[in-house]
Every structure is written in structure tokens, then in C-alpha cells.
């Protein structure tokens, strides 16, 4: 059964259709690639799924409930967590603090209790889990460095670490390997596979097809705001429309 259903999502910015009737499903436990050339509407789609934008029409069904138009923090609470395309971090905090901040939903104490009678036990537990996450992503050695001083590859990994701290059921990554060299890309893709193997469903936006082709279980291809293909990597590789979208003008001649 589909964990997340995107149903006929349309989004207009003024007169421009960023997304037209896009429809697909995300199955539990899979690693879904969402690819397409620049400007295809991938990030807009994420923004709609996570509540950052409201769509012009259409619905998002998560575990049988329509979550379209809900506030972002509510959607996160339900289990859909995203990362951001440009590396958004809490720049002036250490890597460890970043991940601790990501654990917001794990805290149960209210305002007065957390100010005057903070639970040491809870904070210790969160710090321990944060270290585990950092270790999982190979960041433990830089845990005390300020986020803004980290090298690019580490920053991207830290973005994933923060998202993991929010305990996602579905983790939506926006171009997690952009700007990485092939080696870093391979490492990141391995990490993502391991996250999937821990039972987290993953969605990955990428415009670099090669990076995701070998790892993804299924792929959805967007072009000019429309879904032009969906299927396993082998099918996508042979799909005429996809080739045309990527190689473009030459074929059309």
C-alpha cells in the first residue's frame, strides 16, 4: 500500500504552471528518485508535500489522511521530514547542537517545566542519540565545530543528520549530492541506502541522473511541471521521453 500519495497536484505561480496534475505514489521502505532537468518543478513539489507552499489544486494523502495545506511543523510531526536544497543549517551552532536542535519533537516537557525543572535524563538521552546520528553519518569527529566552518560535504551530511533527528517515516532529500565529487557522492548514496535499510522511506530529488540511477528503487521523472515517466531505473533509462527531456533539441530536429 502506498504510504504517500500525490494526487493531481497543480501549482500556478501567477500565470505560470510550475506543476500540472502531477500524480504518483511513494511505497513504504523504498528509495524513490525524483529527477528532471532544472526548473522541472521538483523542489516546488517538495515544498507542497511538506506544507511550505499550498498547491493550487490537488491533494497529498499520507497514511490515508489528506495533509495538503497543513502547517509545516505539523506535517513534520506526522513523519514527513525534508532537507533543503541550499545547505540550510543552524550556522552558529556546533554540529552536535544542530542535531540536538533537530530532536525538538522528542521533548515532552512544557515551557515552565523545561525552564525550571529540566529533565536531565531526557537531555542526556537526546545528546546520546545525537552522537549516534553523527557517528552514523561520519560526523562525530567534527561535532564541536561550528556548522558554518564545516566543509561542504560535511554540511550536506549534517543537513541529513538534523532531518534524521526529527525521526522521519519519510525523508525527502533535496539534491543531497549536489556539488560533491564522485567519491563524496558515492559515500552519501551508501549512507542513504543504509537509512532506507533502517526502515525509513526516502525520496531524493536530483537533476544529475547518473548519481541516483544505480541506487534508487523507482524513479519519477518530471519535465516542465509534468510527470513524463515513472518506473524502475532500467525502464527510465530506455524511456524515449526521458532521453528527449535530457538531450532535448537534438532529437526534436
Amino acid at each position, binding site marked *: 500500500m502506498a504510504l504517500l500519495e500525490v494526487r493531481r497536484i497543480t501549482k500556478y505561480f501567477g500565470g505560470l504552471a510550475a506543476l500540472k496534475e502531477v500524480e504518483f505514489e511513494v511505497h513504504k521502505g523504498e528509495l524513490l528518485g525524483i529527477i528532471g532537468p532544472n526548473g522541472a518543478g521538483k523542489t516546488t513539489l517538495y515544498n507542497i508535500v511538506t506544507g511550505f507552499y499550498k498547491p493550487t489544486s490537488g491533494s497529498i494523502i499520507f497514511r490515508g489522511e489528506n495533509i495538503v495545506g497543513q502547517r*509545516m511543523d505539523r506535517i513534520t510531526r506526522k513523519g514527513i*521530514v525534508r532537507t533543503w536544497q541550499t545547505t*540550510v543549517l543552524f550556522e552558529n551552532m556546533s554540529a552536535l547542537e544542530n542535531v540536538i536542535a533537530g530532536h*525538538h519533537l522528542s521533548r515532552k516537557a512544557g515551557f515552565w517545566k523545561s*525552564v525550571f525543572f529540566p529533565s536531565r535524563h531526557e537531555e542526556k538521552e537526546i545528546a546520546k542519540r545525537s552522537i549516534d546520528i553523527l557517528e552514523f553519518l561520519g560526523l562525530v569527529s567534527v561535532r564541536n565545530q561550528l556548522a558554518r566552518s564545516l566543509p561542504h560535504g560535511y554540511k550536506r551530511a549534517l543537513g541529513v543528520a538534523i*532531518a534524521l533527528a526529527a525521526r522521519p517515516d519519510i525523508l525527502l532529500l533535496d539534491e543531497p549530492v549536489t556539488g560533491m565529487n564522485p567519491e563524496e557522492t558515492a559515500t552519501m548514496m551508501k549512507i542513504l541506502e543504509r537509512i532506507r535499510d533502517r526502515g525509513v522511506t526516502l525520496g531524493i530529488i536530483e537533476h544529475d541522473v547518473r548519481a541516483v540511477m544505480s541506487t534508487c528503487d523507482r524513479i519519477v521523472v518530471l519535465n516542465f511541471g509534468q510527470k513524463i515517466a515513472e518506473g524502475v531505473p532500467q525502464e527510465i533509462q530506455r524511456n524515449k521521453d526521458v532521453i528527449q527531456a535530457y538531450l532535448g533539441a537534438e532529437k526534436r530536429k
Partner: protein
Amino acid sequence: MVGRVSIALVVCFALAIPWLMPDPYLLHVLILTYIYSILTLGFILVWTAGRLHFGIAGFWAIGAYICALTVMRAGVSYWLSLPLAGIATGIIGLGIGYIVCRTGGGTFIMLTWAFAEVIRLIIVTETTVLGGSAGIMGVPKPNPIPLPGVTIQFIGKVPYYYLILFLLLVAVFFLYRLYKSPIGLILRSIGQSDHLSESVGIYVLWYRVLAFTIAAFFAGLAGSFWAHYIGYLCPDHFTVMESLYVEVAGIIGGLGNFIAGGIIGGFFIVVVPEVFRAFKQWVPVIYGVALITVILFLRGGLASLPGVIRPRLPKWVTERVRKGNGAA
């Protein structure tokens, strides 16, 4: 971080000042300093949550008027109306914050400024209850506190000094706990990235309103004190310049040093005009130069100065200091 011992020393020194230097003028300056410190602490709190509060003076005015009016018109004891005025100001701050915290950047600055001006203009216009631009004269002194043996009368500067010191310590203690708690981490998170905070499940608006409300509460307390200390109220006390001074105090004191920055900023903003009393018209220029200097060369403000200087001292100085500390 400053150690517990040095904090205790500073507090003891502040408590001892009326004995060490019982000069009314000095005490008056210190009282003003503590008021501005409380206001600046609130400003820095809102700044930590990522917004530049430009209307602190408005909440200061609300606290002052509510407290003075409940005492004078309703005959409530000052000791009841002091906290009540703080809470009422906090509730008003909650309402205004719920509106303005949806905006950011320049819009937020303009809106907070506009709200503060609207509050001042309401006071100017409303002559029957709020006294209009003529103000309210003869705000009574706080009721005497009967203790077994002695009764504390509010005569001279000393009792006022201890009262405002007490309020400042309450603010410092509360905010210290707040910054150390998970709430402090959340506020710093939303100050650095709204989007990322939201995507880890933080309801950004609520926490920002919370910071705004707490700042309003303490500004209201400072106002309640101010009204009964100075003895009369007039809308001219609460112009946009006061909000601006609080902002200058926050930046010069150090926005990243949540507590020390506020207190040092409060000192700066009050002590500078007193020191340069002979050149009064030049004081805004001094503020301006100080502001630019701090922004260009000392981003952490005056509170960050020890951390900046220490690594640059010649080795023999640092070693001597370390040895001295070891001996002590």
C-alpha cells in the same frame, strides 16, 4: 562563560554599593542603568529569536501607565499592581506579538515601531484617564513594607535601588534558566533559520511570540518601577528614541552574550550621557560612532571583549594572570 564565583562577586558588589558609595546621584544613575538593562535583556531575547524589536518603549509605557493607574484610580497596593502590570503588559505583548511575529525583516521593525508609536499617541490623545500630553502628576511612592522591627519607607534612593536590583536579578535568573533550557536552544534555532526549524517540527510563530511576550513582561515590570520611582508620567518619556537607545544598548553590549550583553549595554547607554554631560548635544554622535565601531570591529559587542583580548595579550601577562588565579 563566567564562573559562579565571579557572578556571586558581582551580585555582592551590586548589593553593597549603597553602603560603599551612598551618593544619591550615583544611585540614580545605577537605577537608570538597571532599568535599561532589563529593557535591553528583552530586546536581546527577541533578537535571539531572529527579530529586531523596535518598540520596547511602547511596552515600557504600557507597564508604567497600568501600574500608576491601578494604584491611583483603583487604590490597589503597589506590591500587587507591580506584578499585575507586568503580566498585563505581557498579555498585551502576546496579542501584539501574535500579529507582528508573522512578519520578518523590515516589516517587523516597522510594525513594532508603529505599535509603540500608536501606544504613545493613544496616551497623548486620551486626556481624561491617561492624562494626555500633560502626563500624570503625583504618582505615589510604593507603600511602605512593614517588616518585624523595621518598616521600609521609600524615602531617598536606597530602597528604590534595591527594588530595581531585585527586579533585574529576577529577569537575569529567569532568562539565564531560559537560555540554558531546551527553549533557549529552540529560540537560537529559529533565530538562525526559520525554514530548518519548521522542518524539524518547531512551531516557529509560537516560540517567537513567546520571546516577544517575555520581553513585553519585563519591559512592563521596568515601567511599573519607573512610574513610581520618578513620580510622574508623560508620553514624552516613551518616544521612539527610547526604543532606539535600547537597540543601541543591545548591539553595543553584545547580542550574542544574552545576559552580560544586556547589562553592559544598559550601563553604556546610561553612563555615556552622564559622563559627557557637558557635551549633551554630542551624545547621539558618540552612540553612532560607538555603534559603527562595534559593528565593524567587535561583532560580539563589549561583552565579547575579554574573549577577544585574552588571546592577543603577551604571553607573560596571561601567565601571570593564570598564576595569580591559581594562588587565589
